[in-house]
């Protein structure tokens, strides 16, 4: 039995390592081509091991390093505030929906889900947020529109709560005289650490990676987050490469090369790579406290 378990562990680890290789090899090609010179890329093609190393792509991006640093700071602030606000809203919405006795539960669930299907498009949202709430060129623009609460996350959380927290636990707490807010805080939250940490990760990534809000609601460069900065570069390149720009006299030196595009992607992921393991430590701690197992 022990022997078999050992074999299983080895095989299972082997499978996971293969899967990881499958995930990471393409990314390595990305990194490798970001440090290969443009001419070399054309002559020798894409290779996992660049024959000479050229950091000029990174130099290009870091020309305005003040702006990029400010972008990172802004992204971090937005991600932290946004994730916290989102999780609060999501939990507050998901908990009542797990209560099967709540009158109108089905209707509210439908009300929630309906927003996943239908939307009025960008224009009405833009009018709403800029003309009524005046978020344009403010920090709010990066936090509030679209990202503050999503049906997907609420439904995920509700499903988790319904299948992992028995109704009897809540009934028991209520009989003990606890109010709903107290039940949520003292009973439900401690039991949903695993879903909360997972959602925190996904929401956090959502905020970190978001650039559409920045694109539409910000045109002041002191308020550009990292992803807005990087994606603007990519977007401009895309445009300049498209047929629409044929024959336009745009200085070629403004056009990021392949290496720069790759480097841009690396710069977007890098902070997550650095921060995530630390973050995950706390997240996983939450998970293991929530459900200790062998």
């Amino acid at each position, binding site marked *: 039995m022990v022997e078999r378990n050992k074999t299983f*562990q080895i095989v*299972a*680890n082997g*499978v*996971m390592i293969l*899967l990881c290789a499958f*995930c990471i090899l*393409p*990314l390595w090609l*990305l990194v490798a081509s970001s440090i290969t010179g443009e001419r070399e*890329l054309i002559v020798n093609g*894409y290779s*996992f091991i660049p024959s000479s190393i050229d950091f000029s792509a990174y130099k290009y991006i870091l020309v305005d390093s003040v702006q990029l640093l400010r972008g990172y700071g802004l992204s971090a602030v937005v991600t932290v505030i946004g994730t916290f606000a989102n999780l609060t*809203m999501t939990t*507050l*919405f998901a*908990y009542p929906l797990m209560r099967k006795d709540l*009158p109108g539960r089905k209707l*509210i*669930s*439908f*009300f929630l*889900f309906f927003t*996943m299907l*239908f*939307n*009025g*498009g960008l*224009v*009405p*949202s833009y009018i*709403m947020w800029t003309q009524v709430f005046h978020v344009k060129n403010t920090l709010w623009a990066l936090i*509030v529109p679209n990202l*503050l609460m999503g049906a*997907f996350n609420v*439904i*995920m959380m509700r*499903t988790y709560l*319904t*299948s*992992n927290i028995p109704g009897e636990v809540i009934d028991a707490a209520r009989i003990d005289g606890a109010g709903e807010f107290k039940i*949520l805080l003292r009973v439900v939250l401690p039991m*949903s650490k695993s879903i909360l940490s*997972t959602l925190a990760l*996904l929401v956090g*990534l959502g905020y970190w990676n978001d650039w559409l809000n920045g694109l539409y609601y910000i045109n002041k460069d002191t308020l550009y987050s990292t992803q807005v900065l990087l994606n603007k570069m*990519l977007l401009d390149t*895309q445009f300049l490469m498209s047929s629409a720009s044929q024959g336009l006299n745009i200085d070629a030196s403004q056009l990021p090369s392949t290496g720069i*595009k*790759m480097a*841009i*992607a690396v710069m977007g*992921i890098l902070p*997550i790579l650095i921060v995530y393991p630390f973050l*995950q430590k706390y997240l*996983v701690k939450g998970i293991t406290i*929530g*459900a*200790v*197992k062998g």
Partner: protein
Amino acid sequence: MKKSRLKRYLPLYLMLTPGIIYLIINNYMPMGGIIVAFKNYNYQKGIFGSAWNGLKNFIFLFKTNDAWIITRNTLCYNLVFILLGTVGAIAVAVLLGELKTKRGKKAYQTVILLPFLVSIVVVSYIVYGFLSTEFGNVNHTLEQMGKDSVSWYSSPKYWPFILVIVNLWKNIGYNTVLYYATLIGIDTSYYEAAVVDGATRWQRIRYITLPSLLPTVSILTLMSISKIFYSDFGLFYQVPLNSGPLLDVTNTIDTYVYRGLMVTSNVGMSAAAGLYQSVVGFVLVLLANWIVGRHDKDSTLF
């Protein structure tokens, strides 16, 4: 009776209030914009002031022989994505759950989530790095092995597989994380009891883990079904480099709409396409939700 009921549920409704307000502002009020699909939109007259246009904005969707190709592609790819994505992610999540090394678990989880962080435009550059006829890594390797290089971007027969692999690569980490969260939330006492009863690993997975995942599977699948008429624009447009010869296997509703409206950028027509996609998804999800509800009330969306 009524009063006490209200008092009892009032705190719950109070909790729902911020979310409901947000949904009304962020989602429902802009939904008025949907009627643009039936209008000849004029910027000076606004959404409600513009003249009605009947169903004229919808015609272009069904105008060509491609109408059925794009519908077929959108549906089939999505079905395959849902199926493979779900099976793959569950398998990986279960495997992760069975692992002993804590460090390993962490590392694996991080690594498989990485592709999800790369924007699809960049994914298209990576794919090009592999498949470019002239500069690509794959063709270089093929040549070194003495084989003929392949003109990937002109050979439609490979693309169904390439697209499925790219989609799997990009999204498996995300789905795994979702399932894994549910999996570690399973009450450990079930497992302990099973071990005492002498259940094998496979039996534990078969009778405890998988059934516990079922509600999550059902919900995630239902949500995917509601989006079945949508496609990841980047995956079908950027990744195949908008290559004409591949269009029979890469053209979906979204890319069709984009190609058609790129130059004219007609607000009404793009709204019409979006509405068409939403309505079909809505009908399908109502149906699927009803079917699921007949078997298990807890696993429905609403």
